[in-house]
């Protein structure tokens, strides 16, 4: 209470956004992470404090630059500004103004000076076949560059499916032996933000958490932030009630498809893909902008072993309940049952015979007991 009101005027000037918009954004990120409002304030302060900006080395391997493009095209309030202001982006092949050996020298210098302090972001898969000669930057292989940069990184983030588990490059027959960063950097913790392209919100939220608290958010066994990848798409999908009620689109353009029914039978991989697409959608454009939202089954872009591996329209492996082929109709409930006199009599007679026979046997056994064991020869 007594604390002096934090001055955001500096941020307003730097980012070109109003204080209100800025705080709203931080609150939104904190809410996505499942953190209280106080965390939003802490994040806002962390962003506003220019001294805490961590240096970032950003490597590109085999990829389409989708993750960076997604980040830059985000409709969140000046997200590109924010992320670029939040961090000190010392090296990024797509965004660097400089080029050639000059920029490589800057990278080496930054890595040397900030050893143990910089954040390493890897985008794109790393080919390992034939000593990694299939992807080279400035004469060095991506494999060597990755290992070199990882050596003294404070934290490593694999951004996008390619760097998380190999992505499209690693699809069979994988001619270049493409692998994700966690597979190349065995023994080092690599946070993965998979997706093709990944949702920038998942990246920004994770980085904001790191900058604010100096540690990583809780991760799952595939090193994905739990706040973003803790649930199956199937669990939060707004088409889920259709799944539970047995209403499916069976073909593209059929009645069910037009009515927005569940896409499971068109091969939706939502039941085996962990991501927060249904709740965040994509790039805050709104209006259901994500595959299932626009009527196409999820193809599991962020899930290793699903996206680029399973056929697009094959049925997903359900981790929970499998739906039956048909469901009972609601309107014929009133006609059910019906206790007929014959049935009641029959059921009663059957139970009666069983109990009666038992009673007779009990009596005979009792007689046998009282007459001793002398009648064994009978």
């Amino acid at each position, binding site marked *: 209470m007594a604390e002096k009101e934090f001055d955001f005027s500096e941020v307003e000037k730097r980012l070109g956004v109003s204080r209100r918009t800025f705080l709203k954004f931080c609150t939104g990120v904190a809410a996505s992470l499942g953190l209280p409002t106080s965390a939003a304030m802490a994040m806002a302060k962390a962003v506003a404090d220019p001294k805490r900006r961590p240096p970032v080395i950003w490597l590109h391997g085999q990829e389409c630059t989708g993750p960076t493009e997604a980040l830059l095209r985000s409709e969140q309030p000046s997200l590109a500004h924010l992320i670029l202001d939040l961090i000190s982006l010392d090296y990024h092949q797509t965004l660097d103004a400089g080029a050639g050996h000059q920029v490589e020298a800057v990278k080496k210098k930054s890595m040397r000076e900030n050893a143990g302090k910089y954040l390493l972001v890897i985008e794109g898969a790393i080919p390992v076949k034939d000593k990694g000669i299939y992807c080279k930057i400035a004469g060095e292989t991506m494999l060597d560059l990755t290992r070199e940069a990882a050596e003294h990184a404070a934290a490593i983030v694999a951004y996008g499916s390619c760097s998380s588990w190999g992505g499209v490059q690693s699809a069979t027959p994988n001619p270049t032996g493409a692998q994700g960063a966690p597979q190349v950097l065995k023994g080092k913790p690599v946070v993965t933000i998979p997706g093709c392209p990944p949702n920038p919100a998942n990246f920004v939220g994770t980085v904001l958490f790191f900058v604010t608290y100096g540690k990583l958010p809780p991760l799952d066994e595939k090193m994905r932030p739990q706040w973003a990848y803790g649930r199956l798409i199937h669990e939060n999908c707004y088409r889920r009630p259709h799944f539970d009620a047995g209403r499916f689109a069976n073909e593209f353009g059929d009645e069910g498809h037009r009515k927005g029914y569940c896409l499971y039978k068109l091969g939706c991989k939502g039941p085996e893909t962990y991501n927060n697409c249904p709740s965040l959608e994509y790039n805050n454009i709104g209006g259901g902008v994500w595959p299932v939202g626009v009527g196409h089954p999820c193809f599991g872009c962020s899930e290793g072993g699903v996206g680029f591996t399973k056929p697009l329209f094959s049925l997903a492996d359900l981790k929970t309940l499998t739906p039956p082929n048909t469901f009972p109709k609601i309107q014929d409930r009133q006609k059910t049952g019906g206790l007929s006199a014959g049935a009641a009599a029959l059921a009663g007679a059957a139970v009666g015979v069983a109990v009666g026979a038992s009673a007779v046997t*009990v009596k005979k056994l009792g007689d046998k007991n009282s007459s001793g064991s002398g009648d*064994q020869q009978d």
Partner: protein
Amino acid sequence: MSAYKPLGGRILTAPFIFFAVIFLISLYFMAQRFIFGMGAASNLNGGFAWGIWVVYDVVIGTAFACGGYALAFTVYVFNKGQYHPLVRPAILASLLGYAMGGFGAFFDMGRWWQFYEIFLPWNWNFNSVMLEVGLCVSAYILVLALEFAPVYLEKIGAKGLLKTLNKLLFFFIALGMLLPTMHQSSLGSLLIVMGQKVHPLWQSWQFQPLLALLSALIMGFSIVIFEASFSTVGFRRASETSLLAGLGKIILGLLISFLLVRTVLLVVQGNLDQLFAGDRATLLYLIETVLFLIPVFILASPVNRNDGGKLLIAAVSMLLGGALYRFDAFLFTLNPGVGYSYFPSVPEIMVTLGVVSFEIMAYLVLVKTLPVLHREEHA
């Protein structure tokens, strides 16, 4: 010389003819079901997809058929060899009971001609409890047939085959213990899957398999007493009460654990208030509890345990209690949604009675023609 011998005697006795008449009448209704379909013959509906064909023939029928399982456990796992004379008739009853369950399931399958699909591994849905039950029960019927095979081989005098089978039998006996443990507990899992449709007094969630297994063992031991008692009176054989008294002690332990687990769960899971609701479910629960308590009081005294009549009262009480426990959970208190109700139709009841009659007829014929019952000792 085998320790077992066929009972011999007339096949066409009065009870046999009584059951044969019921069976012949039931054939008409069986034909009706297979010609006109399930909708024509049964009162099954969208809410109550399982009627007595599943709940009685399979869920309760296989528990009644757990005599072989319960005895095999006692004889082979706890090495109580003195109960061996009871094993063969128990295995026969189990074989017939399970075969009846398997056969009964056919009536309940909408497209029964596709039943073989369950045996094709590429069709398997590993999330299905029913797959586990279906495969396990089918496998167990085969195992029971093999466990019973020595009886038939003895009869036809196939000594070589008998010798080979006896060498391998330990493996099937082990399977014969594993499989019922698996599917009897899965019958409890079926209730977990039915979730909130099951009344809170019966929905113990993750403890369903334990309760199902305990009740199956209780019913299994009870049916051994039940059969032995009826054999004693019906075939005028020497009383086996001294043997059965020993089983009484085991049952007492099982009964007390069952009642204890159930009561503790009721308190721990916060459903105790349901006991004071004063509705039909409360009444059914209390009847069940009384049916399980009667044998506790009977079996607690050694004098009663050695009284054949009292032992049979206890057994019948447990069988009724166990059957009611399963009927209540699966049918009587099941709430599949507003507007659904179910009581079996005449054809449904007749089909079930026909199947049971056939089972009893088969038992009567087989104990008279095959060496199933133990040779009586001459004191």
